[in-house]
């Protein structure tokens, strides 16, 4: 093997790891990235953001072709589905994306090492290749970017056939007649939407008494109404305590959280989507003396340094929202720190998007969080039904909600339910980074007719100056 000593070795080739490796190489550091899977890109590109969004788009088009066109005066016979072709398109998008990262590694001269990495001690990583061959890699700096894995549900063993995780749900060979999604978080609602649009009867079972835990309560309520209208069923305050998998499908036992008799719920396919947990199996953390917290996350000092000098950690494996863009920014900042720069990642302003239809996006604090923190705030809320572009697009569900400090008018949070929410949120994110007030956003000339005018109007509403409501 070639020279196996580096300035930086990154373990994990997901959005955190591959971006960190590229940045480190760009900063002149001799860099390697160890990835156990055959392709780079990690969860996000292979079995996460990218394939799920590809299927969400395809299934949305399918639904539009079936139901959305008549109002425009477009007549079309009910569409047929070629699921294999739909999945093949998704695979192609994934493959284009992983190939893109291969190209970036070559271009930036990042050495890619295939195999599973184990930290022997500071400065040394042992890599076990797929064939079992072991090799030693030394580096001044080690970055842990091993990401996360699906959180298992006790007594509901995932076989990726009938009882699937998000990974299996991205590749079902046929549309199930019925599907139960356990967990009403982002991933459950997105993938539940995909299969509902393609024809499955979808029931979501959630332990809490609300969907989208962690997101603004009003947003969650609106989305539950919307998704219900689309045909998704919800059973809240219910816990799944066991599963029996047989030839005819899966029988789940479901108990009300507040007590009561258990009940059996049957489905062809069960999707377990109760969350993700940090992945550090076989990484040798304990032996190397790297501290983890009670949730299995690698502990850092807030600047990605672990408890062992020369070993860093970023992304899903450390504290914070498990989001690809958070991992990426941490990857960049970590590489810059290693190179001696002084970057900061603004962890207060990390947008999050749910790619249901309509989309949901949020940045900053929710109303519940502000109340709990005792911060006096003012809210402005503008519905897309009063927005010209939303109407012209026949897509006028949802609203923009702005939360600003009651005293200073500084933006504290923003929540959007609606078409292209994931794009609209960036104006707020950028505004918050700049410490903007709601008035700043309200005074900016927003193009007409755009959905973004609802962002302006909601901002004006904080001080009661909205024009179009």
């Amino acid at each position, binding site marked *: 093997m070639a020279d196996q000593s580096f300035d930086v070795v990154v373990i994990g080739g997901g959005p955190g790891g591959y971006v960190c490796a590229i940045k480190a190489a760009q900063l002149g550091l001799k860099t390697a990235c160890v990835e156990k899977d055959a392709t780079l890109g990690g969860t996000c590109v292979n079995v996460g953001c990218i394939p799920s969004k590809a299927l969400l788009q395809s299934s949305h088009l399918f639904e539009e072709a079936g139901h959305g066109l008549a109002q425009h005066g477009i007549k079309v016979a009910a569409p047929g589905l070629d699921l294999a072709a739909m999945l093949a398109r998704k695979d192609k998008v994934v493959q284009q994306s992983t190939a893109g990262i291969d190209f970036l590694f070559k271009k930036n001269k990042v050495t890619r090492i295939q195999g599973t990495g184990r930290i022997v001690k500071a400065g040394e990583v042992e890599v076990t290749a797929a064939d079992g061959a072991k090799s030693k890699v030394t580096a001044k700096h080690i970055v842990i970017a091993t990401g996360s894995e699906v959180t298992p549900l006790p007594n509901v063993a995932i076989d990726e056939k009938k009882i699937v995780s998000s990974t299996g749900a991205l590749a079902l060979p046929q549309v199930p007649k019925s599907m139960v999604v356990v967990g009403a978080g982002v991933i459950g609602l997105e993938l539940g939407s995909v299969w509902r649009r393609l024809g499955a009867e979808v029931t979501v079972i959630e332990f809490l008494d609300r969907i989208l835990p962690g997101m603004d309560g009003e947003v969650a309520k609106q989305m539950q109404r919307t998704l219900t209208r689309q045909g998704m069923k919800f059973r809240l305050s219910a816990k799944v305590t066991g599963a029996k998998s047989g030839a005819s499908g899966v029988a789940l036992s479901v108990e009300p959280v507040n007590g009561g008799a258990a009940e059996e719920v049957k489905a062809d396919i069960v999707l377990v989507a109760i969350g993700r947990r940090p992945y550090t199996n076989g990484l040798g953390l304990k032996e190397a003396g790297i501290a983890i917290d009670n949730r299995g996350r690698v502990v850092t000092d807030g600047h990605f340094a672990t408890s062992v000098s020369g070993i860093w950690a970023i992304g899903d494996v450390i504290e914070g929202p498990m989001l690809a863009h958070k991992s990426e920014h941490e990857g960049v900042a970590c590489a810059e720190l290693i190179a001696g720069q002084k970057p900061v990642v603004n962890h207060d302003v990390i947008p999050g998007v749910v790619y249901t239809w309509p989309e949901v*996006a949020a940045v900053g604090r929710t109303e519940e969080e502000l109340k709990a923190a005792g911060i006096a705030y003012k809210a402005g809320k503008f519905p897309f039904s009063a927005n010209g572009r939303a109407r012209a697009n026949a897509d006028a569900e949802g609203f923009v909600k702005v939360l600003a400090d009651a005293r200073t008018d500084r933006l504290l949070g923003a929540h959007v339910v609606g078409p292209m929410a994931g794009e609209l949120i960036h104006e707020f994110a950028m505004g918050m980074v700049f410490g903007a007030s709601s008035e700043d956003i309200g005074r900016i000339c927003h193009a007409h007719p755009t959905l973004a005018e609802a962002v302006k109007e909601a901002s004006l509403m904080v001080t009661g100056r909205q024009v179009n409501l």
Partner: protein
Amino acid sequence: MPEIRTKVLIIGGGPGGYVTAIRLGQLGIATMLVERAWLGGTCLNVGCIPSKALIHAAEAFEQAVHQAGTDRYGIRVERPSIDFGRTMEWKDGIVGRLKGGVAALLKKHGVKTLAGHATMLDGKTARVESDTGPQVIKAEHVVLATGSVPAPLTALPFGGRVISSSEALSLSDVPQRLVVVGAGYIGLELGTAFAKLGSKVTVVEAEDRILPAYDTELTRPVARRLGALGVEMLAATRARGLSPDGEALVVEFAGGTERRLPADKILVAIGRRPCTEGLGLDQLDLGMDGAFIRIDERCATSMRNVWAIGDLTGEPMLAHRAMAQGEMVAEIIAGQRRAFDKVAIPAICFTDPEVVTVGLSPEKARKAGHEIRVASFPFQANGRALTLGAEEGFVRVTARADNHLILGIDAVGQGIAELSAAFGLALEMGARLEDIAGTIHAHPTLGEAFHEASLRTLGEALHI
């Protein structure tokens, strides 16, 4: 003759006029708005809104047609058909609801409205021909917001098969052969929509390229798409007039040769001119700027307490500029100190793909004497674009070379109109490239292309 007194008189109920009125109402100022045709003006009735509705329906239709042909997403559909009458009803429904909304808003804010044509008698008095007879209105402040009308081509007057954008938005059938004169945004938006709906479209443009107001790098993807849609583009070509039998447009190429373009409809979209007919401008002594009314940065005309806003005051003739001016004038009348600092008035072409420009283009920045750095990031390398099947286009960032202050942001791509707001904010906040680089953009979104374009302009691109 009955005489009405009010603090503020607004002439014209388009986006400029009605927004001024609502804001004045909010500020508690007695306001009267006179409109001769329709509340909402050009924008709501024969402009932005109906055009975007038509564009959306055409897009949905074309997508269904395309799916019937290819099966790219694994969706099999039969070839769709269109009931254009139903499409138009749907569009009219939207316009109707929004117009009702404007009327309700004016009422809610205590604005009096009067239907009729207004003619200025002097700087503070207007005569209105209303349904109930003529009325005279006296005001302390007058806001002129009479907007614009389609500019005619002398050699090709409107009438018969020669139509303006207004008629194009309320046709009863999809014309088989449509010739569009003028490849500006209005001509191309409508031409594209009709091409998608099944018209055989030919676009005639006197300049040597489409969207002459934009640079070719930005418009190239639009030109390509027009080609793919089967639109014939005749650049450097002049419309000469109707053929003697009245069934074709005769055009002349640069070399002097002529060609007959048989057409069912000929859409003349060569621009818009201020609407000042019968406004009584001859009774006032207003400084002019060509055919437009001259204003300063407060929208004050040369006469005290006579204000002018919107299309009537020249380029850029955009609804959101009219609205921004209107909000400001209302606040000035209410005694606030305001001025219009036009750092960022986004301009969008709702073509396919869409084009967005905010701030200075590289060329304009250079002309303004800036030393710049500029770079773009292609949607081909953007995850969201891949998942949407929208890889065409890019985001381009222009910044000062010395301190990295962002001067302009442009983009071309499918569905990117909504990126304009974040672009505008960046310019308004005086962002530098580093500021955008440090802002976490959600993944996967089209907005990440702005982040990456900023990184690339800094020389620090990650994903290309």
